[in-house]
């Protein structure tokens, strides 16, 4: 495509007398909104075709209700393909007061033009197009042309470029606008190497819609689309040369069952609009542009002072010091920056820069927050949040949620309230389940702020939960957003849990944690697909500690749960079995490991407990289990405490006898290993070990053979080993030892009888001693 071709096409595009007039927009540009309104008023088009989801056309009248902007069209679908991880997806088409699309809808309606969206339904391009907000200008931002032009015009980035050539010109005429915007967009397109497949498809589809409208309506047709597409649409329709229009197939929208898709209005906010970055980048600082739009509407010259005043208020609200001198400095800098940048009045970037430069007195790192910059952005963002008019449709899920909340009397109110549930009460349990379901769907307004922690399980004496409920403006929109998961709450939660499971890395412990979460949302949500997916994750777990932790969670659900109704739930058998056999296998594989002893022994304990409690249900073969443990116990590559633990397990389940254990003990009689072995043995065979006098006797014999040094070496780990016993148990063991040694008078330690003054004196000496230790800096060695 030659420069002359570009010129020719631009000339055609700027022609407002043609049958089909193309109006290029930058989404959310007030200047474009203003001018599209003017154009519609003068052109009185028979039809206004707008870049928007054509599957919304049947509900178009809803848009004309009395909404408070910003709002968005939310389009969602569930794909039948369950293998993919992203089969519940949704996107937004956001509108704010100053959106050119919105202006076109309103003015078109006033001018009695036919209104239509002409873009390909999103579900047809969803596979190749990643952005979740449809009105963004990612396409305009990137590319060599923009970079070169920014350098030429000496501006920093695309936002500034647009401000420079269009937005900050208060009195830009329609002809000027068309010329500049079309040339800019066409050149960007021209310099762009690849036009994506989804763009080509959408443009082919839009061209066809224009053609249909042209045949249908008498009179001029106005096409309002992103500037990036205008040129291609005209070129496709009228045979001009243009980049990326060579394929001719017009795609048919992908057919999706009605139950699996939806397109509805939802509320939106400036907050959401402003936070768009990356693929989703749009026009920043909506509050600023709204201000500019209002002034433009009123025919006034742009004045930044109201914004500056708001900024001062915001800063003072945040307890930032801002003196009059500072304000003068900000104002001066802003004016000077505007002058340096060749502008008539202070614009967006000038304000931000003036504040950064005059108020921040510290290093400012990239991405680092500063209260001043935050305040500027908060003011330039604005707080506006939309509200839908009565009569707009809502997806079935939203009514389901409302109905269920009402049934259980948990409706959200403006005032915040707290509720507390006793999970052993059936009514309370139902309520808790409902709230957990809503939390799983990330619906706003519910917060669980206390209760039994079923993952830590420190305190299971009382099963309770407390929740805070309070209406937030995001409640409705989050319900609508969740609609992509299903039409009923139960389906949606099941789908959402499954998605979460699929999105996770193979980590058995988080799989089990997810299962606990699902159990909290009600046993109904434990779908076979979810269990399958979690089972796969457990089966793929390579780490013993994670697998055994999963086993611990599962054992709790399967054996000890009193509230959720998962005890001995048949559906869970397979997954418990998987976790059990996986943990056992990993135990056998275990070599020298960096895991600390506590984790390993805890894992072994859950294996033992599973065997003891539900071995029959899981149909574990006793001799197989025993032989695995024997192998572990005999494996010289394993750390002593694991081998001790295995010996303890065998002893506890009665597959070995005391003599063998004593033999093993002698094998580990080395001072480096004795304590570790005993730690394992005692943790896994606590009951048997203390009932066996010979064991203590043998330990005693071994210790007596140690020299002083050896004893010192063995002591710390021996201490650890005996911590598994309570003082009473230790006393009992000692008594049996003394008895077997023929010593009679075993008494608990005698209490010393000392008078108060002796105690005081002793304390004073001790204090002096510690003082001296501190004085010479010996504290550490003392420890």
């Amino acid at each position: 495509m030659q420069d002359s071709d570009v010129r020719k096409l631009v000339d055609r595009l700027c022609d407002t007398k043609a049958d089909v007039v193309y109006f290029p927009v930058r989404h959310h540009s007030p200047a474009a909104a203003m001018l599209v309104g003017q154009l519609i008023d003068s052109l009185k088009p028979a039809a206004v075709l707008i870049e928007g989801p054509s599957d919304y056309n049947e509900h178009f009248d809803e848009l004309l209700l009395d909404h408070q902007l910003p709002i968005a069209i939310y389009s969602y679908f569930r794909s039948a393909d369950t293998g993919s991880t992203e089969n519940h997806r949704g996107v937004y088409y956001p509108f704010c007061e100053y959106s050119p699309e919105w202006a076109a809808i309103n003015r078109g309606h006033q001018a009695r033009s036919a209104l239509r969206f002409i873009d390909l339904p999103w579900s047809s391009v969803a596979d190749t197009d990643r952005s979740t907000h449809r009105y963004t200008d990612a396409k305009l931002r990137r590319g060599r042309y923009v970079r070169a032009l920014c350098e030429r015009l000496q501006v920093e980035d695309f936002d500034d470029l647009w401000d420079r050539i269009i937005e900050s010109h208060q009195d830009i005429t329609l002809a000027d606008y068309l010329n500049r915007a079309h040339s800019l967009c066409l050149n960007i397109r021209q310099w762009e190497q690849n036009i994506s497949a989804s763009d080509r498809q959408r443009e082919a589809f839009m061209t066809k819609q224009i053609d249909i409208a042209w045949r249908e309506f008498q009179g001029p047709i106005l096409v309002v689309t992103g500037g990036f597409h205008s040129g291609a649409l005209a070129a496709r329709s009228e045979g001009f040369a243009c980049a990326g229009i060579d394929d001719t197939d017009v795609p048919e929208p992908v057919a999706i069952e009605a139950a699996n898709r939806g397109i509805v209005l939802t509320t939106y906010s400036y907050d959401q609009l402003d936070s768009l970055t990356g693929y989703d980048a749009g026009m920043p600082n909506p509050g600023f542009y709204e201000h500019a739009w209002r002034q433009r509407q009123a025919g006034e010259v742009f004045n930044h002072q109201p914004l500056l005043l708001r900024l001062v208020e915001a800063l003072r609200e945040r307890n930032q010091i801002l003196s009059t001198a500072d304000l003068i400095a900000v104002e001066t800098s802003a004016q000077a920056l505007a002058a340096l940048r060749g502008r008539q009045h202070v614009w967006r970037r000038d304000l931000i820069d003036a504040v950064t430069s005059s108020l921040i007195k510290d290093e400012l790192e990239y991405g680092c927050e500063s209260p001043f910059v935050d305040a500027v952005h908060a003011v330039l963002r604005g707080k506006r949040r939309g509200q839908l008019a009565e009569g707009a449709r809502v997806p079935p899920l939203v009514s389901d949620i409302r109905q269920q909340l009402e049934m259980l009397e948990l409706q959200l109110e403006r005032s915040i309230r707290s509720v507390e549930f006793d999970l052993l009460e059936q009514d309370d349990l139902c309520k808790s389940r409902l709230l957990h379901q809503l939390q799983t769907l990330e619906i706003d307004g519910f917060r669980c702020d206390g209760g039994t922690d079923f993952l830590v399980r420190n305190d299971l004496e009382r099963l309770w939960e407390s929740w805070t409920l309070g209406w937030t403006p995001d409640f409705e929109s989050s319900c609508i957003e969740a609609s992509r998961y299903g039409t009923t709450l139960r389906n949606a939660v099941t789908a959402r849990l499954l998605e979460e499971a699929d999105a996770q890395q193979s980590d058995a412990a988080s799989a089990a944690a997810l299962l606990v979460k699902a159990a909290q949302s009600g046993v109904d949500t434990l779908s076979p697909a979810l269990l399958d997916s979690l089972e796969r994750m457990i089966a793929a777990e390579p780490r013993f500690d994670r697998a055994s932790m999963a086993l611990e969670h599962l054992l709790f659900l399967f054996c000890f749960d009193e509230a959720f109704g998962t005890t001995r739930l048949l559906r869970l058998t397979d997954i418990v079995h998987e976790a059990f056999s996986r943990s056992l296998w990993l135990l056998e594989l275990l070599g020298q490991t960096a895991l600390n002893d506590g984790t390993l022994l805890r894992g072994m304990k859950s294996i033992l407990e599973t065997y003891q409690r539900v071995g029959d249900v899981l149909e574990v073969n006793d001799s197989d289990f025993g032989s695995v443990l024997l192998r572990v116990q005999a494996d010289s590559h394993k750390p002593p405490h694991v081998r001790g633990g295995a010996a303890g397990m065998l002893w506890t389940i009665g597959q070995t006898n005391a003599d063998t254990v004593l033999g093993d003990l002698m094998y580990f009689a080395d001072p480096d290993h004795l304590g570790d072995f005993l730690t394992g043995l005692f943790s896994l065979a606590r009951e048997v070990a203390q009932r066996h006098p010979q064991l203590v006797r043998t330990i005693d014999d071994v210790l007596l053979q140690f020299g002083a040094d050896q004893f010192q070496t063995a002591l710390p780990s021996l201490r650890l080993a005996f911590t598994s016993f309570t003082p009473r148990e230790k006393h009992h063991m000692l008594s049996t030892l003394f008895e077997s040694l023929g010593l009679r008078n075993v008494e608990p330690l005698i209490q010393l009888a000392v008078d108060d003054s002796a105690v005081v004196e002793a304390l004073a000496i001790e204090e002096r001693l510690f003082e001296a230790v501190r004085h010479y800096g010996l504290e550490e060695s003392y420890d």
Partner: protein
Amino acid sequence: MAKKKAANSSAAASVTTTLQRPSAEVQYANELASLAKASVKDAKPPGWKRSPRAVLTFVLGDTERDMPAKFVGRRAFLERCIVSLATNRGLMLIGEPGTAKSYLSELLAAAISGDSTLTIQGSAGTTEDNIRYSWNYALLVAEGPGERSLVPAPLYLGMTHGKLVRFEEITRCALEIQDVMLSVLSDRVMAIPELPEDNRMLYAKAGFNVIATANTRDRGVNEMSAALKRRFNFETVHPIADISQEMELVARETNRNLERAQVPVRLDSDLTELLVTTFRELRQGRTIDGKGMETLSTTLSTAEAVGTACAAGIHAYYFADGQVEPAHLVRHLVGSVLKDNPEDLKKVRHYFDHVVKKRKTVSWKAFYDARNELI
């Protein structure tokens, strides 16, 4: 390119070749002259030699006028710096060591006042005399205090002639010395109590302002008094964000330094990429494909990269066959990375074993093979 231009003017040429490092206004004399000529009709802040736009063009370069960029940074940042200097506040440049703060202040002073030599070097030993003025004691005794016996220091000169004064490393000075700047910055006047009544107050001429630099690694700006902070606009100078720009700068500066040292060796693009990538990864604690790693305690600025490359070039020229090899870079990397913390060496070794090892191009391989140079 700047060199080529300077070579056209014989006076400049003779100065630039004999001096080890000519000041910016000498080195870029031609560019400054042409900019001054072009902006003669533009509005200028009082006392400025060039318009703010011309200053911006000088620093950031202009491809149309064949003027190279001298500093890599965001345009908005530079605009803010220049505007600060035109207001009644000083400009404080802060940032990590080696981010070209001093160089930027030199460029700004050269472009705005045509003189970058009014420089106060802040140090623990800086006294008021170094900043304001001192006396020629022989004349003081003979004639008493007066214009002749007064020895002006940079601040005095800047105020008298309406020029920018540079205050390097201001936070290295004692607090009471820093505060000498207070009255000068707010009232733009300096009292000289020794002089007779009429000359007791020195009022700054239009065009006077102060550019201070401070480095965030040494004693921080937090130690500055709030009163002094208030009189400065702070701007943070960041390390170069774009890797290709950093590579370009490292190659250009290295080659210029080598040329100046009369070493006919060039750093080729492969090695530049290798060096800059290594420095960036160690600096940011993140590999270019986004994996996290530990950062070093020393600063690895672009200037350090240039230093390492120059050392490698000189090494190659005098001790090898004149071809810079990855091994030379490794050897001199040790010097720039290892300052006082032996942990850093471990981290660099780990970097070689886990990051460099996986890269498959020839120069990266050679770089890895030379890892034994890391003593």
